[in-house]
């Protein structure tokens, strides 16, 4: 675990160097565009986390493995954390570029619904006393809530929104300069490692808590 933590710290430091030292100042937005190196990897981790919740929930319902339930629980918690960060950093980025902190457009609304759904998932787990029943109900919510992920991602195509369409996670050739893509990629790796570190730590904590309660 310490090795993963150390590698994650180095990767995060490299991500900061890429975002502030290597990536150039964007021509139209200026330096405020550097928030992208935090905002986009955050939403990537949220997508990843909720996809893991979906798979782990299906495995739990099919096989009844406690490990799958713990993985879903841990991943949902980390996903909610990064969705919250995505919303907050997007709002901070929106004020200087759009002139507003918030608007109820399709992308912002759908990502808020995603956040509330997984927050509900976590609250549901805490509300039901029987752990097996709570795990089953949570697995169903974890599967149903995942249908919102494509809605969030494609909302910028399906509705007219203030939010720009994806620059990276889209089909076809990229339009961004290579150095910006490289800076983003380093941060994608760093945030993915952070996700792995947090989830591994949370899964271990859940297992120890369950052993202590038994």
């Amino acid at each position, binding site marked *: 675990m310490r090795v993963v933590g150390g590698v994650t710290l180095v990767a995060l430091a490299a991500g900061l160097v890429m975002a502030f030292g290597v990536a150039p*100042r964007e021509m*139209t*937005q*200026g*330096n*405020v565009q*550097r*928030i992208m190196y*935090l*905002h986009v990897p*955050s939403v990537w981790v949220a997508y990843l986390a909720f996809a893991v919740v979906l798979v782990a929930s299906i495995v739990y319902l099919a096989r009844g493995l406690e490990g799958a339930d713990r993985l879903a629980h841990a991943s949902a918690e980390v996903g909610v*954390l990064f969705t*919250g*960060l995505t919303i*907050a*950093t997007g709002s*901070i*980025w929106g*004020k*200087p570029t759009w002139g507003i902190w918030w608007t109820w457009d399709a992308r912002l609304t759908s990502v808020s619904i995603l956040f509330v759904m997984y927050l509900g998932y976590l609250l549901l787990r805490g509300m039901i006393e029987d752990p097996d029943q709570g795990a089953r109900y949570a697995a169903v919510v974890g599967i149903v809530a995942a249908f919102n992920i494509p809605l969030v991602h494609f909302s910028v195509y399906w509705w007219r929104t203030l939010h720009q369409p994806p620059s990276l996670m889209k089909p076809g050739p990229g339009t961004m300069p290579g150095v910006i893509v490289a800076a983003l990629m380093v941060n994608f790796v760093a945030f993915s490692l*952070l996700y792995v570190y*947090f989830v591994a*730590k*949370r899964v*271990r*904590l859940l297992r*120890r*808590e369950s052993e*202590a309660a038994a």
Partner: protein
Amino acid sequence: MPDNWGFVLAAYGLAAVVLVAYWRRLVRRERALPGQSSRSTARRP
């Protein structure tokens, strides 16, 4: 367009505070588990 460094600082600062707070919460909860504090004390020279 002005650079708006204050917004950049706010975004990265907020992220740092939130992520460190979550990590600290996990560490605190792990240490609070029965047997964890005594084990860590035993390792000290």
